[in-house]
């Protein structure tokens, strides 16, 4: 597992938070939203909350992973909301979340918001997570057609930690095999670099994964670096 985060070229602070630990089999990427300070606090609360929940729980069996993730994320969501309500300047803070827990040969990917996880395998790239934004929701019929007219930003988030007391998180299960690489990133990368270019770069760095996060960050910065950029790659080693 390799990862890095960068402020980008425009922002004055880094509202992305990141944690990864190959031994624990856990990686978390969160992209904070709200105010000057709120975003930072929200994303750090999410990352720390999930990390601590994982460190204090007993070993998980496959069937226990989803309930564990749901509970931990629900708790973190409540934390973010109560911190936001209790502290001046943090009102309305929220964060996206992409968190991967590796249990045995399976990866459990939980996702809220528009940070993404991609799967790379033999020069193929798939976006595994669905961005929780207005545009996608209207497209899938989960929001009425008029929503885009009301909300001028098609990329506005519909789901994120801290937005609502009821938090619904997507949890995907993926059986990993040697040669597969998961790329988890904030929208600071995907907003600047298109999928085709990302695929090309991964292909080029497939055998130098430790350099890949920095290389992708550099690419996003070269394209303008409009937002904070966070990238983590995780791979199953060939046996």
């Amino acid at each position, binding site marked *: 597992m390799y990862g890095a985060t960068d402020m980008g070229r425009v922002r004055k602070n880094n509202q992305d938070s990141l944690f990864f630990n190959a031994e624990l089999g856990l990686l978390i990427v969160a992209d904070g939203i709200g105010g000057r300070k709120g975003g930072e606090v929200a994303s750090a609360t999410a990352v720390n909350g999930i990390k601590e929940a994982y460190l204090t729980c007993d070993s998980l069996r496959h*069937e226990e992973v989803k*309930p564990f993730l*749901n*509970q931990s994320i*629900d708790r973190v969501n409540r934390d973010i909301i109560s911190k936001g309500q209790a502290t001046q300047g943090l009102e309305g803070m929220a964060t996206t979340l992409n968190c991967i827990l590796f249990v045995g040969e399976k990866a459990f990917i939980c996702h809220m918001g528009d940070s993404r996880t991609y*799967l790379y*395998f*033999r*020069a*193929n*790239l*798939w976006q*595994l997570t*669905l961005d929780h934004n207005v545009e996608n*929701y209207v497209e*899938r*019929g*989960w*929001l009425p*057609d008029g929503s885009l007219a009301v909300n001028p930003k098609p990329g506005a988030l519909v789901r994120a930690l801290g937005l*609502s*007391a*009821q938090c*619904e998180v*997507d*949890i*995907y*299960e*993926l*059986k990993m095999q040697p040669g597969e690489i998961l790329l988890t990133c904030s929208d600071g990368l995907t907003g600047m670099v298109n*999928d*085709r270019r990302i*695929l090309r770069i991964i292909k080029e760095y497939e055998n130098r994964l430790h350099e890949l996060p920095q290389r992708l960050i550099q690419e996003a910065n070269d394209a303008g670096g409009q937002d904070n950029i966070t990238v983590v790659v995780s791979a199953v080693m060939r046996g």
Partner: protein
Amino acid sequence: MDRLYLIRVDMEGFLGPFTLKQVKEAYTRMEFGLQDEIGGSLRQWVTFDDIEGIRRHYPELVQLVQTEMLSGWGVSTHSAPPVSAVKVKLPQPKKKTNSLLIFILFLILGAAGCLGFLLVQDGQLNNLMLLIKDRTYFTAQTLYSEGYNARFEAHMDRNRGEINQAMRKKRGFAQWIPFVRAVAFEKDGRWEGLSARRLRGKIEEPLPQDCSMNSWEQRWSASREQWARFLEGSDLPQQEWASILVIDPQWIRTRTPMAGWIRPGSYHEACLSMALKALQRHTGGDGSWEAKVFVSRLRWQLGFINGQSLNEDFEMSGTLWALSCIEDSHETNELKNCLSALSVRQTWRDLLDHAMARKRIQIVLENQSQLDEKRLESFITLVAELEKKPSNGLQSFQEELSFYQEIVRLKGNVQQARNEMQKKLPNLHFEL
């Protein structure tokens, strides 16, 4: 190198990456279905039942989808032959005009206008337009006008392909989804060709993504070891089977019918009904005492939602007895008995306390259109207590709280507060 595909199953898991051959093999092993999605590298995710999408993005899969997947469900996959660009010489109309013809045309237009006026007066024009534009939908609507019946169900089943096709457009989806849900939850909670998530719709409450009978059977089967501790009050797992058993039926009744639902009136009711059917099938009607209590509780909740007379005997016990006792109480004295001799963990205590606090308020409001001074005073205290209690984490009672605050603002005028709330939240029905 072979092209590779990934299959997203139930929006919860992935199969692959597969070659085309492996996709076909996985289908023969029934590892995925029509409602699942396929994605190629850097290509769009498309559901298998979206034949137009498959044609456009994955032409190499058309044969598999048409000959094996869709045909198995009696869906017509026949496409109209392409229209050849042959120029046809049309007979030229005679240019000669005739005053008699113009007179007849005026007569016809006049008659059509009169007929239209009469139909509009009678409210029949919409139906006529619908009949012309969408015969299948018109028939479904006509058949359902007498309530859910076998002929309606057969019509829906027979036209499944056409309905699925229509539902790909947003307008068609909005039109058909209430009928589709009615049929799906009358049966096993699935509609072939539509994902569980779309069948569910967007719902704030943490209800399962999939409330089909099969998914409930898995939940009951996997949780069996926890049932006794749940009923004793030593454990309140944050799992879907436990949540459905403690969900407040009054909350659901206040919001029924929800938009997009006709029968059942909401996804909540649909889940309860599927959970009940699945539990009965899973235990084969000869289950443990815990299963009997669960069945009773689910029947109680469904009966409550539908306002049925609940005179039958329910085999309740432990925590679920306490919860149902609270929900069934109509006097404060009755409430006191509900928690006697029950020692439970804090999570259960919080949940029961919240239910108790809500019920106390409902009792004060029962049959009252205007609260007298004494009642109002007690009501204000109870509302303040409820506001302080931690939410039960399952349902948001924010609208209920707003209603209560409105009553306080209007100095106990319940009827007026109800009318005000009705204007703000027309889909909610606060009972008095």
